[in-house]
Structure formats: structure tokens, C-alpha cells
């Protein structure tokens, strides 16, 4: 009997030791896990810092562009003044106001019901691309998506649930604003078999509002030209004067 109880307590201690070891092992893993978490936290802090810097530089950039534009108003050459105004409007570097439409795209409610492919019921980069293209075809003079001005180099990329436009992550709902003829743009979107029909087939919720007046912000990113070779300014200007 005495031998037996000794035997049992050894078994018990052995069991406990085993549990302890496994727990210890898990804790060690958790600590490594923690390092990864620390790294992510560090990264998040850096990104936060850079975003602040980004804002500061963005404001500086806009101010400097404004200063140069202001100088063109004092310019002796009326041609430069006129060209500058037209070019900045066209390029997307000025805030614009006018009549137009506001199109709102929301993810489908059906996504929960059709678990097989919920992806089909979310707003995708392609959907936005199509709506923007349709608006341009209907004569839109300026377009913005959730306040991001669409310029020639604007990309629309899908990144999980968020969509990136002009490198900014935007979340749904997506509000596309366009300046132009409200009637022409609305009827182009609502055409039978058109973009809205297509989107509604997938249950995407689309609403179009005609507006007497709306404003579209200026492009606030950088003007990237690392690869474009600057032609001789003089020859460019001669070409300009001849045309």
C-alpha cells in the first residue's frame, strides 16, 4: 500500500511536469509572437509618423503650386496666364464647381446569403472604373471618387475590402462625383443594359443624384515625372505658338 501511493504520486508529478513543459513551450512561442506584434506596432507608429509628414508636405506642395499660379496672374504675357488657367483645370490641379451628378455605390446586402462567392457582391475596382469611364464618355469635365480627384495617372486598385485611389485607401460606400451635364450623365448611366443595370445584377446598390452645384477638390498628390524626359522648353513653346 505504501509502495503504491508512492508510485501514484510520482505519476502525478510526472503528469504535472509534462503539462508544465507544454505550457512553457507555448509561452516561449507567445513571446516570439509578441516580438512580431512589437514589430507590427513599430511599423504602425512609423506609418503614422509618415502620414503626418505626408500631410505637411502636401499642404506645402499645394501652397507652392498656388503661389506659382498666382504669379501667372501678374504675368506680362496674357498667353501664359490663359494657358496656365486652362492647363491647371484640365490637369486636375484646381478645385472646381458646377452642376453634375453624385453616384453612390454600396456593397450588396446579398453577400451574407450567398456564402459561395461573397466576393461578387462587393464593390470592386472594376465597377468604379466602369462608372467613371461612363461618366467621362458622357462628357464629364472633372471626376472625383470619395474626394480623390481623378487625373490621367489615377489608378484604382483593390486591396481587400479597401480600394486604393491615388495611393489613398478608401472604404465603402464609394461616392463618385462628376461635373458636367446632369441629364446627359444620368441617362448614360441609366441606359438599358448600361452600367447601372450591370451593377444591380450583382446586387450592388447604386444611387444617382443630379446636383445643381457640387465641388470637386484639386489633386493633392505629387506630379510624378521621374521617367519623362523634359523636352527643350523653347521648342515646346514654339510648337505651342504655332498651333
Amino acid at each position, binding site marked *: 500500500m505504501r509502495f503504491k501511493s508512492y508510485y501514484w504520486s510520482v505519476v502525478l508529478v510526472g503528469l504535472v511536469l509534462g503539462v508544465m513543459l507544454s505550457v512553457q513551450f507555448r509561452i516561449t512561442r507567445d513571446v516570439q509572437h509578441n516580438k512580431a506584434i512589437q514589430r507590427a506596432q513599430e511599423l504602425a507608429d512609423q506609418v503614422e509618423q509618415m502620414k503626418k509628414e505626408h500631410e505637411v508636405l502636401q499642404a506645402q506642395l499645394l501652397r507652392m503650386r498656388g503661389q506659382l499660379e498666382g504669379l501667372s496672374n501678374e504675368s506680362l504675357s496674357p498667353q501664359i496666364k490663359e494657358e*496656365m488657367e486652362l492647363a491647371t483645370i484640365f490637369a486636375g490641379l484646381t478645385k472646381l464647381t458646377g452642376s453634375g451628378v453624385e453616384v453612390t455605390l454600396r456593397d450588396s446586402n446579398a453577400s451574407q446569403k450567398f456564402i459561395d462567392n461573397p466576393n461578387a457582391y462587393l464593390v470592386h475596382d472594376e465597377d468604379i472604373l466602369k462608372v467613371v469611364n461612363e461618366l467621362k464618355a458622357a462628357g464629364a469635365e472633372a471626376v472625383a471618387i470619395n474626394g480623390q480627384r481623378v487625373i490621367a495617372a489615377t489608378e484604382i486598385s483593390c486591396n481587400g475590402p479597401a480600394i486604393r485611389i491615388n495611393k489613398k485607401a478608401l472604404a465603402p460606400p464609394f461616392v463618385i462625383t462628376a461635373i458636367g451635364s446632369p441629364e446627359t450623365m444620368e441617362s448614360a448611366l441609366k441606359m438599358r443594359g448600361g452600367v447601372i443595370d450591370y451593377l444591380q445584377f450583382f446586387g450592388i446598390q447604386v444611387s444617382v443624384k443630379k446636383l445643381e452645384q457640387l465641388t470637386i477638390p484639386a489633386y493633392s498628390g505629387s506630379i510624378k515625372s521621374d521617367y519623362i524626359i523634359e523636352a527643350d522648353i523653347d521648342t515646346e513653346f514654339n510648337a505651342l505658338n504655332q498651333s
Partner: protein
Amino acid sequence: MKKRIFFLSISFVAVLSGVILGYQFRATSAGNNVVPLDREQELALEKKSLVEDLYEMRVEISDLSARLDQAGVGQREAEQALERELARIRRFAGLAPVSGPGVELVAQIHPEQDGPGTVQPPKDITDEHLLKIVNELNKAGSEAIAINGQRITPISEIRLAGSHINVNGTPISPPYHITAIGNASAIKSRLELKGGLVDILNEYGISVETQERNEVMIPAFAGELNFEYAKPLKEN
């Protein structure tokens, strides 16, 4: 003796479970209130894009400040600075021709119609395919793009109208030659990524040949500029 062994082993086990509980608790509470792990990759991507962005902004700011300095020197210098700025904006808007390194793409229906690997019988290249190609080129950081000589501007449409695709209101027809200025190898590798856009288009029977070029010429937008509805909003 028997009692003592029993007592000792019980206390031993109790101490151990206490320690284990303590560790467990600490490990659990440490896991809360921090950035989830899967965010790390996302953050790394965001950081990368911010680094690029900040660089571009600094380049432009130093450019602009040089121009503003120049403008402060005198009237003649100011005019020159303005001409340079105007030229830069016109290139950016698509109002001036540009050249530089980049890629040239030819998109067309596969020449051998019944070749293997086609899921669907080849149809026509649609406006949607071209839209996707242009969007992909922009994702890869292209600085200027044209399709069959039509410059892509902020308000260019790519849209089927009757039997043709219109770009800038001008009908174009296949094969489609798309030129883009930018980092040629980065653009090409992005397009030709496994499962990337070229792969997807291939499945629809569309072939896309991408050539890297030391110099591509991209013409200016040839249309008229008239703004009937939009008015600039001056901020004070």
C-alpha cells in the same frame, strides 16, 4: 512517512499549477490591445507607398522652390519660371507630347484561334479590357499613356460606340498599340505576373505582347479644351 509524501506531492502540484496559471494569465493579457499580426504585411505595403510618395513630393517641392526663387529675381526670370511650370503642368495633363523610357504593348486576338489554353472562343477585345490594361499601367506607376496615338488624359474615355472603341471621341481599331512611359521592367513584370492581367486576358483568347523600349514617344491630346460646366473655385 506515507502522509508526508502525500502532503509533499500535493503542495508541489499546487505550486506548479499556481505558476502555470500565472504565466497563462500574463501571456493572455499581453496578446490584447496590440496590432493584429496580419496587419503587418499591410502596414509594410503602406509604408513602402508612403516612402515613395514622400520622395516624389520632396522632389517636386525642391523643383517648385527653385522656380519660386527664380521668379523672385526679376521679371524676365519670373516669366521663364512660369514657362517652365506651365510646360510641366501641360505634360502632366497630357497637353504636351512627352518622351522617355517605357513599354509598348500590342493587344490583339490570338492569331491561332484554336490554340490550346483558351477557355472561351476568342471574341473581340472590348473597352473593358483596354480600361483594365490602362489601369494596370497606372498601378505600375506609368507617367503617360496612349492607345493607338490617343493620349490618356484625366477625362479620356475608352468606350465602345457602335462597332468601334472610342478614345477621346476618336474611333480606334485593333490591333491596339498601347505605349506608356515609366519604369519599363517594373511595368512589364507587373503585367506578366503569374495570374496577372496578361494571364487573365490570355484565357479570353487575347494576346498581349509587351516590349521594353529605351524611348517611347507619346503625343499630346489633340482635342479641344472647353469647360462648359466646370468653373474654378478660387480660395482665399
